Each structure stands twice: as C-alpha cells, then as structure tokens.
C-alpha cells in the first residue's frame, strides 16, 4: 500500500511501516493504516495480535522501532499537547478520593480548550454518579467515567482499547450508546476489540490484526462475511472430504475420525445440502467459529493457535 503525502496530512491517523519488537517477539510487524477524519474504525484481533502495542504507539506511550505515526498530521506528542487525542486505555483505574465531577474538572484544567464538564457528563450518561467519589463506583460506572476523561480534552480522535472487557451486558449497551452519540458528533474513533459483534455493530470499518500485521481491512459487512464463519460438525463415516467440499456454502472440510468438520461461509445452505446428500449424518452441531479459527483460515497459519497467548506487555 502506498500512502501519498496529502493523505497523511489530512488523515485522522496515518501509520506507515510501523514495527515494534519486545525481545524476540515482533508485536507489531509492518503496519500501514490510514483512518479518515470522522471514521469509526474497529481494530479487531485476538489477544496478542498487536492491537494494544499499535494503540500505545498512536498515543505516543511507546516509540516504534521503525515507521511513522501521524495524528491529524502531527506527531503523537504534539497531538497530545493540543488535546487532539483522548484515550481510554485497556487497563486503568481512577485515582481515588475525588468526586467524578472534581476529577473531570482536574483533568480539564490540563488542556488548552477542554470540553465543558457538563457536556461530557451528558454524552457519557454519568449524570447520576457525578457527585459520587471515584472509589465508590461499579466496574461499568468506572469505565464510563474513564470514557468521560478521554473526552474532556474535546479531542478530535478518540481511542478506546478494549473498553468493554470488564463490563456486564447492560454496561456494554450503555457504553456503546455513548460511543454512538460521540461518533455522531463527528469525532474520529478507533477502538480495539476481540468481539466480532462489537466491531460489526459499531464500526464503519474493520481492520483485522493477527500476529502484528493487518490481515484484512474493509467495511464491517465485508469483514464479517470473511470471518463470520460457522462450523458444522457431524458424525459421518466413510465420506471423503473432497466430496464434502462440493457442498454449497462449505469453504473447508476436515475429517477427524468418524466426525467431519465443515467451515462454512453459509452454514444454512451447507446444512440444506448436507442432509439430502448424506442422510447418515448424525450428532450435528452448528457453531459460530471463534475469531481464532477465522484467523487461522484467513492467514492459512497452521500453528495459529499461538495467537491466543496473552497480550504482550
């Protein structure tokens, strides 16, 4: 991919040839990415894919070994100085002994053109807890306050690193509603997640990362079709995989003893084709393929299971 100079200066985020290693581990291994202003982009990938390391470099918390990072044409440091970046890091608690309102006022005082505390409180839906001490909040409430902190500089770019990991279903719902409102106000949003549903529902575009590289990049619907595979398992002896591959909607077929495993781009079509052709099939299970499996297929990586090792620190 080539990126022109004008694209860099007008882009919300521009990453060129980004690499970062920790010892022998290539956490980020040649990432090129351009995010347009106003876009909401999901960085999707399993743990250890390099999402957090990429985000740390966008935020200036980590220096790339090579490559270039620009945020609205500025270096991360310049962008931070201007309050152009707001971020909710993957891990982090709030400092204690202040009310939510006081903490927001404290953070606002650091920026040249901060947002109004009340506006940020509204958009993140924390009006009911704004007078509460930060050490008396639930996990979901804490996350929403952290989102409010990310917005207090009135940033043009909002970066969220797996923001809903610690939240329950209700908390997730409230949180993403806030993000929708923020996106509607024209801000550029980049969020990392390992949930395909989140990426699909809330992003305009999905960037798929595995092993420090971008393996797919496109509109959410397109990526979902690629990785949103389902698996059909059935007990079916004596049928060779080549014939199974002929069935509609089947992308790959495997034999495991008596059982067969079919990875399907369209499991509905596949099951309709499978049953009339092989009535002997029994113990049928249809399951959504995990992201890890999807990556395996995408990258054709036989030992792709290593991708699931813990996020690099």
């Amino acid at each position, binding site marked *: 991919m080539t990126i022109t100079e004008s694209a860099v200066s007008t882009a919300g985020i521009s990453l060129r040839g980004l690499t970062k290693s920790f010892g022998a581990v290539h956490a980020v291994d040649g990432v090129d990415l351009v995010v347009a202003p106003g876009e909401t982009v999901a960085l999707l990938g399993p743990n250890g894919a390099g999402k957090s390391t990429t985000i740390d470099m966008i935020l*200036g918390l980590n220096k790339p070994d090579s490559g270039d990072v620009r945020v609205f044409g500025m270096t991360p440091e310049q962008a931070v100085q201007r309050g152009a*970046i707001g971020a909710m*890091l993957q*891990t982090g608690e709030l*400092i204690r002994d*202040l009310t939510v309102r006081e903490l927001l006022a404290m953070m606002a005082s650091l920026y040249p053109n901060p947002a109004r505390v009340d506006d940020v409180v509204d958009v993140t839906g924390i009006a009911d807890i704004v007078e509460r001490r930060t050490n008396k909040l639930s996990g979901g409430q804490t996350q929403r306050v952290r989102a409010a902190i990310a917005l207090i*500089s009135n940033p043009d770019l909002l970066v969220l690193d797996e923001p809903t990991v610690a939240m329950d279903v209700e908390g997730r719902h409230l949180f993403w509603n806030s993000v929708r409102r923020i996106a509607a106000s024209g801000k550029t949003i980049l969020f990392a997640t390992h949930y395909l549903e989140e990426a699909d529902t809330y992003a305009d575009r999905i960037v798929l990362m595995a092993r420090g590289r971008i393996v797919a990049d496109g509109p959410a619907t397109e990526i979902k079709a690629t990785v949103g595979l389902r698996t059909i398992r059935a007990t079916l002896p004596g049928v060779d995989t080549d014939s199974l591959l002929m069935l509609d909607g089947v992308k790959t077929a495997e034999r495991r003893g008596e059982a067969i495993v079919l990875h399907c781009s369209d499991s509905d079509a596949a099951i309709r084709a499978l049953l009339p052709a092989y009535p002997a099939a029994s113990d049928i299970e249809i399951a959504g393929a995990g992201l890890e499996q999807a990556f395996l297929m995408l990258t054709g990586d036989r030992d792709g299971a290593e991708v699931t090792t813990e996020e690099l*620190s």
Partner: protein
Amino acid sequence: MNLVYLRYELLRTVRNRRFFIFSLAFPLVFFYLIASPNKGQELGGIPFVTYYLAGMASFGTMMAMISTGGRISAERQAGWNRQLRLTPLTPRQYFRAKVATGYLMAAITLALLFVAGLTLGVHLEVGRVVQMAGLVAVGLIPFAALGIFVGHMFHPDSLGPVLGGGVSILAFLGGAWSPVGGTHGFMHDVSLATPTYWLVQAGHVLVGEQAWTGTGWLVIGSWTAVLAVLAARAYQRDTKRV
C-alpha cells in the same frame, strides 16, 4: 502554575482519611509516648521534651515527605501514570503538585508537634521556631525527590520494605534516633554526609544549637541534585503498563 490541578491534588491527599490520620498520628503518638514519661528531665542542659520534639519534628516531616512515594506507586499501579501521559501535564507541573502535597503533610505534622509540645510545657521562642521551620523546609527537598524517585521505581508491594529499610538506615546514620559516631572519626563523617543528619540539625535549632554550616548546605544541595536527576529520569522512563 495550574492551581486547579494543585488544589485537587491537595484535596485528594487530605481526603484519604486512613493515610492522612495515620501519617499525622504516628509522630504525635511517638512523641507523647516517649516525651511525657520523661517530662521534667534534662538532656545536656536542655529540657528532654524540647529535645525530643526537635528530633521527632525531623523524623515526622521526613516521613511525611517520603510518603509521597507510596501514593505515586499506588497511582502507577492504577495505571494513572499512563493516563497522565495522555495530557499536556508537564513533568514540572507534576513534580510541583507532588512536592506540594508532601510539604502540606510535613507542615501539618510540624504544627501538630508544636501544639503537642506546648501541651507538655515546651517553651517555644518564635524566632527559633521560624528559623527551624525554614531550615527543615530546605532540608526536606532531597526527601521530596527521594519520594518521587522510589514511587516511580518500585511496585507498591516492594515499596514498603524499601522505604522502611531505606528510611531507617538514613535515619540511623543521620542520628535521628541517637547521635552516631561521636564527634570525630569515620562514622561521624558518614553521618555528616547524610541528608538526615542535617534535617536533624535543623530540628536542633529549636534547642539552641547552631544552624547549618557550609557542609550542611553542600550535603543537602548535592543530595538534592542527584536525587532530582534520578527522580526525573524515573518519571520519564515510566510509561510502561505496570
């Protein structure tokens, strides 16, 4: 100077009740426990209570200053340090706010000890009190840097032993508990080279001893210079996920 930021940083310190009350109570309790049974006694022609007040003032303010390290370490563990890196907060502003909280705690410690001294009948001369407080304030500067340094170097789990051990050694060598090495010799020289010694000396201004010699200013200045560089470096490096 960002007064809003500073105000909340101070407010936060005062509101942390367990920390606040415990750090202030410790020197007070110690003072009462040891000074009141010895009320009326003298130590080298100086009332014991006064002498002990001076010693406790040095030790208590030193602890107040260094305890900044504990709060920094806890904030780092909460990931707050990384959050602050995403703001335009300068290292200077950051240090200033941290040092200010240390001085606030030290000032309250000192004030409470003076009041405690008065309840045990210590006669305080305003001139000496002012001179002592001024010297103590200067003598605390290296400890402010030390607190920030260890706060950024150590995890809360290991900070306890590091601070406890480090402070005890410094306090012992500096003669905070009892004079070390007499008036001559190697141990005396070692003692003179610690910042604690001069902090204790600052306290002793209260009991009529002389203020710092040139050596005192040199020792405090050198420790300040070295520790400030170490603290700044530790802060700058400290962007990792803890």
